[in-house]
């Protein structure tokens, strides 16, 4: 790496923690730490959502996927995200926000029962920790590859950068640094795509080079016998279940909307995030197609080298540093959010609910900071295991596809069907997870179909069990389900009581 590139990367790595650390002064209690004092405006929420959702692994993986399968890879950003974000903004977020909760499992606990809350908190936090290990390892490899420093030193650098502002500043620091990092991510990524298109001779020339040997690469929907993206699986599994589950029930995505300064900001934050989301394929999928046009030699697992190959072979001095900084921005903006969300889940749903109840707010602030530190240490320990025991992390990824469908099923029914009972929710969740485990481990179905059928199963079980058990009283459901809406003063009263822990 040349001097100017190195300067850009080092300047970025120093500026981000310094900027994030500034927000420490605004953190006085657990609400400030976990929900940014419920003061986030819509534009911060939307940029933070995108920063959290797009990681460095997406760059490499999506470009590799586009190299392998073509533009169908963009489903994850388009039909596999945008309708779900709209649903999340207008159907789910208003209920979460009005309920005054810190976490999605906390909402499900209020709607159903403690068991549902604990199961959800354990499932999501376990998955977040797995994913954190993978992200830390990726950052170690990247810094090792481009700056030549040992992997363990690179891990410590990442941990220090993220730790400085995530432990001290909480969600406010995470969200505000995400804004800067998302901008850097787009500037670097779009620069690479423009340069790549210029080198290949424009869009038309790129298409002419790709189509003769890869006739399906510019088709969004692929035949039913396609091994990875059969069109029906994309629609039923990805668009109608996995994506809504991700955007409506994932704590890391939802948490910044819970910290919104108003219900409108919460909704607008998610809706406005749809604009940058729509552009993500320009920085992830398009480079894969450009690499295929310029160098169609990669085969098998080497196709994932499409993005690194472009960086190495296309970028001039100065731009290489900017693109590498955007790569790091994508990674760090995901790591900080996941750390903060995992700490929130364990502090609010496990520690505060099961271990120490009714302590002062400052106590939970301290515990939240300790939890964040513990997760950083855990991530450093787990990171090298990614290489030694890849099966562990494959299991982590599988776990997500197994519980996403049932999670979405019980949340949807919980909000929009008053008759759903606590036992319906619990057995719907457990039944759906059992079915998806069976379909995955015994029958070896494609995960897109597993998500769809486990979602349906969780709804059917929920409905049957709910009809067989006693309905929950209206007092319990007030403000949590459709049709039992609160007036503003009633809602304010409930929010105040919940904030005081007096519910």
């Amino acid at each position, binding site marked *: 790496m040349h001097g100017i590139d190195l300067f850009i990367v080092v300047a970025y790595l120093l500026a981000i923690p310094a900027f994030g650390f500034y927000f420490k002064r605004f953190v006085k209690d657990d609400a400030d730490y976990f929900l940014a004092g419920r003061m986030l405006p819509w534009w911060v929420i939307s940029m933070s959502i995108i920063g959290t959702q797009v990681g460095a692994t997406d760059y490499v993986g999506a470009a590799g996927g586009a190299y392998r399968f073509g533009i169908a890879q963009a489903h994850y950003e388009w*039909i596999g995200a945008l309708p779900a974000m709209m649903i999340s903004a*207008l159907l789910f977020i*208003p209920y979460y926000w009005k309920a005054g909760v810190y976490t999605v499992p906390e909402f499900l606990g209020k709607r159903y029962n403690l068991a549902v809350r604990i199961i959800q908190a354990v499932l999501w936090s376990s998955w977040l920790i797995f994913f954190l290990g993978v992200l830390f390892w990726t950052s170690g490899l990247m810094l090792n590859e481009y700056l030549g420093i040992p992997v363990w030193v690179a891990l410590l650098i990442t941990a220090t950068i993220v730790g400085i502002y995530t432990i001290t500043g909480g969600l406010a620091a995470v969200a505000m640094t995400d804004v800067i990092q998302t901008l850097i991510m787009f500037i670097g990524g779009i620069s690479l795509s423009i340069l790549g298109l210029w080198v290949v001779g424009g869009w038309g020339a790129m298409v002419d080079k790709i189509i003769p040997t890869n006739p399906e690469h*510019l088709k*969004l929907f692929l035949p039913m*016998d396609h091994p990875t993206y059969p069109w029906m699986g994309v*629609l039923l599994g990805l668009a109608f279940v996995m994506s809504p589950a991700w955007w409506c029930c994932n704590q890391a995505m939802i948490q910044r909307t819970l910290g919104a300064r108003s219900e*409108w900001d919460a909704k607008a934050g998610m*809706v406005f995030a749809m604009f940058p989301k729509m552009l993500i394929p320009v920085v992830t999928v398009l480079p894969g197609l450009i690499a295929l046009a310029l160098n169609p030699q990669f085969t098998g697992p080497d196709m994932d080298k499409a993005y690194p190959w472009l960086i190495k072979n296309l970028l001039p001095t100065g731009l290489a540093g900017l693109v590498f900084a955007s790569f790091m921005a994508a990674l760090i903006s995901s790591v900080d959010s996941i750390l903060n969300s995992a700490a929130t889940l364990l502090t609010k749903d496990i520690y505060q609910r099961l271990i120490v109840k009714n302590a002062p707010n400052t106590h939970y602030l301290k515990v939240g900071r300790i939890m964040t530190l513990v997760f950083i240490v855990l991530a450093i320990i787990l990171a090298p295991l990614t290489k030694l025991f890849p099966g562990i992390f494959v299991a982590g990824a599988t776990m997500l596809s197994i519980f996403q469908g049932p999670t979405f099923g019980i949340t949807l029914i919980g909000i929009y069907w008053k008759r759903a009972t606590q036992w319906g929710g619990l057995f719907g969740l457990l039944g759906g997870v059992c079915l998806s485990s069976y379909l995955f481990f015994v029958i070896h179905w494609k995960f897109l179909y597993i998500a769809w059928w486990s979602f349906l199963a969780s709804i059917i079980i929920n409905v049957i069990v709910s009809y067989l058990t006693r309905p929950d009283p209206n007092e319990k459901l007030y403000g949590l389900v459709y049709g039992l809406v609160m007036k503003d003063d009633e809602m304010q009263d409930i929010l105040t009581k919940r904030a005081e822990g007096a519910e």
Partner: protein
Amino acid sequence: MNEWLNDFPIFWSKIVATLTFAGGVLWTWIRPKSFIFKDAPDEKKWRDLRIWITVIMISQIVIYLYF
């Protein structure tokens, strides 16, 4: 069950995708205005989330019909 789904011709994919996006637009416009602007500082046009969603969904319909 999956075999039954396999029998649908691929042109249905574009129809379903278009209906999904168009349905999203229609659904947002039947939301009450008071719900869309709830807690908003004012009711200026740019704060109308239905307009944002319409722009995005129409772009998606164009993309999915083209590719």
